[in-house]
């Protein structure tokens, strides 16, 4: 955690951005969800063979994210067409954002870019005011699950920070 270029840490303002979410160029970013917790799930690539796919898991957990009114955004350096095919194959309905041009720009700003040219497998939870409250870097080949995210969302809810 002493690495100044490492993953963004709690207490920092979440860098603002928007990225293309659909082939028509529709732009989505965390600031559009102010007032709600936002979960950024950086991941190395669509189609990567992590057994028990992380994005498919988050889709299956969508009703639980809804209980926290949390917005989930998946982010990789893949382009929108790859994202669209991947989302269709896995039944993913939350936005997958294309950090494609300039490549990995958003991942770099969050300290979640890997030198081999992909996003790291990294989770960032942002509170309703835009402050990072939890982050976690997973080995690329390990699906980190969602328990850490929900623990962070629980703490937010307990602090009464959540808009209700």
């Amino acid at each position, binding site marked *: 955690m002493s690495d100044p270029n490492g993953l963004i840490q*709690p207490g920092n303002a979440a860098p603002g951005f928007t990225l293309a979410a659909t082939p028509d160029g529709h732009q989505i970013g965390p600031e559009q969800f102010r007032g709600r917790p936002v979960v950024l799930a950086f991941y190395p690539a669509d189609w990567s063979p992590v057994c028990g796919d992380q994005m*498919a898991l988050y889709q299956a957990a969508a009703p*639980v994210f809804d209980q926290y009114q949390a917005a989930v955004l998946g982010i990789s350096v893949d382009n929108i067409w790859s994202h669209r095919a991947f989302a269709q194959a896995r*039944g993913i309905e939350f936005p997958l954002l294309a950090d494609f041009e300039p490549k990995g720009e958003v991942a770099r700003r969050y300290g979640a870019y890997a030198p081999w040219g992909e996003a790291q497998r990294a989770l960032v939870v942002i509170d309703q005011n835009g402050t990072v*409250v*939890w982050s976690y870097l997973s080995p690329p080949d390990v699906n980190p*699950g969602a*328990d*850490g995210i*929900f623990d962070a969302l629980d703490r937010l809810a307990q602090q009464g920070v959540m808009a209700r």
Partner: protein
Amino acid sequence: MSTPLQVTARLRDPVTAEDHARGPVGAPVTVVEYGDFQCQFCGAAYPNLHEMLRQRADSVRLVYRYFPIANVHPYAERAAETAEAAAARGRFWEMHDWLYEHQDQLDPVHLSLGVEQIGLPPDELDAEVQSRAHADRVRRDFVGGIRSGVNGTPTLFVNEVRHEGGYALPDLLAAVDAAANA
């Protein structure tokens, strides 16, 4: 507030009388499986878990919890709710076994035949599944699993500690024997 190191995941929902368990109640080792009836990896693990229980009949109990990833496996949720409908009639494990032994026959028509095959009324079960009578139970298992760090299926917890090894019979036997001797 940050979590720099993930500690070994532990089961957060203890086993209760409402769980579906197979094996001696007082067994020193309890294996909790989070599974998806349409998942091929669960299907591959099924005969090994079965054989593990046979070889460790006095020391191991298996608990099954539902973890359907419905967006990837379109029949998984229906299969889980059908198993729960069978459970309401005391026939959970027969249904569980049929489902894992017929993973290529989980479509509604064949599933109905399976229900009939194990001696339950298909129309009655189908009506319960249609009305989502057992959806809450399946959802509860799923949410409990997610909170315990389940990230895919199958995921096993051996005496509440997540099993990080493989699902071949020797791996399973080694894991339960280690827990029994701990």
